[in-house]
C-alpha cells in the first residue's frame, strides 16, 4: 500500500512514533508546538506594536531583533525563522507580501488571512501596490514613499505602523486594541477609533 492510500490517523501515529523513537520530537514537544501555534494571533503582534509605541527601549530592541523582542513578551519563537520588523515613518510606508508562497510571521500574527495567500494579492502587491492599497481604503498622504517587502526567503516580516495622532495618553492595552492584522501587513493603517 502506498503512503497516499494509508489511513491518515494511522499514518500520523506511525510518524509520531518514529519521531519519538529517533529522538527528533517527543509527544510533549509536539503538543507544546501545537499549543503555541494555536495561541498565535494578531493580538500578539498588536501587543508588540503597542509596547513599541510607548516604550522607546522596546522599540529599539524590536527594530534591532524582532525575535528577541517577541520572546521578551513571552511569545514562543523557538525553532521559527527570524522575525524582522519594518518601521513605518511619516514619509515611508511598508507593505508585506510573499510572491513565491505565503511566508508570514505566524508566531506574532497567527494564520495568514485567506487573501494573503491569493495569487491576486501576491501579484498585485508588487506590480500595482498603490492600486491595491486604494481597494483597502488606504490612501498614503502625498510625499509618502511605499516599500513593498517581498518575503522570499528565511526571514518573516511585520510592519511597525505609525501611532495615530489622537491617541496621546492611551494605555498600552487600549493602544493594542486598535492594532489590526492588516495594519501589521501594511494594507491598512491604524485608526484611533
Amino acid at each position: 500500500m502506498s503512503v497516499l492510500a494509508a489511513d491518515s490517523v494511522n499514518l500520523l501515529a506511525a510518524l509520531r512514533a518514529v519521531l519519538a523513537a529517533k529522538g527528533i520530537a517527543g509527544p510533549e514537544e509536539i503538543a507544546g508546538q501545537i499549543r503555541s501555534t494555536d495561541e498565535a494571533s494578531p493580538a500578539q503582534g498588536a501587543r508588540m506594536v503597542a509596547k513599541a509605541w510607548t516604550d522607546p527601549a522596546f522599540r529599539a530592541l524590536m527594530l534591532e531583533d524582532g525575535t528577541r523582542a517577541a520572546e521578551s513578551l513571552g511569545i514562543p519563537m523557538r525553532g521559527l525563522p527570524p522575525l524582522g520588523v519594518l518601521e513605518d515613518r511619516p514619509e515611508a510606508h511598508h507593505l508585506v507580501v510573499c510572491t513565491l508562497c505565503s511566508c508570514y510571521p505566524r508566531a506574532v500574527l497567527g494564520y495568514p488571512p485567506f487573501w494573503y495567500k491569493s495569487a491576486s494579492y501576491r501579484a498585485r502587491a508588487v506590480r500595482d501596490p498603490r492600486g491595491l492599497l486604494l481597494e483597502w481604503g488606504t490612501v498614503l498622504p502625498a510625499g509618502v514613499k511605499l516599500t513593498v517587502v517581498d518575503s522570499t526567503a528565511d526571514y518573516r516580516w511585520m510592519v511597525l505602523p505609525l501611532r495615530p495622532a489622537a491617541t496621546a495618553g492611551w494605555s498600552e492595552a487600549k493602544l493594542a486594541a486598535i492594532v489590526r492584522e492588516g495594519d501589521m501587513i501594511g494594507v491598512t493603517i491604524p485608526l484611533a477609533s
Partner: protein
Amino acid sequence: MSLAPGTKVRVKDDWPEIRGPCHIRTPHYVRGECGTLVRHLGDFANPEDLAFARPAPLRPLYHVRFDQPGIWGEGAAGDALLVEVFGHWLEVVTP
C-alpha cells in the same frame, strides 16, 4: 566575506527552471534587474539544496532594494521593492 550595504548589484538572469527540477527563492521579476544592497540578513542553508534533501551549505542572504516602477514600467516614482536574495544570485555591478 559579505557584500557591503550600498553595493550596486544585478540579479543573475538565470532560469534553472528550464534545465530541470529546482526550488528557487529568487522571484522571476527581479532576475536580470539591478538594485542596491541594503544589508546582510545572515547566512542560511541554501534552500535550493534543502528542498532536495541534499547537504545545504550556508549562503549569505541580503536585502536588496529595487526601483518599483523601474521594474514594472508603471507605478509611483520613488516606490521600492525590498527582496531577500541569496548571494550566489547576485553579481556586483561595476560602474
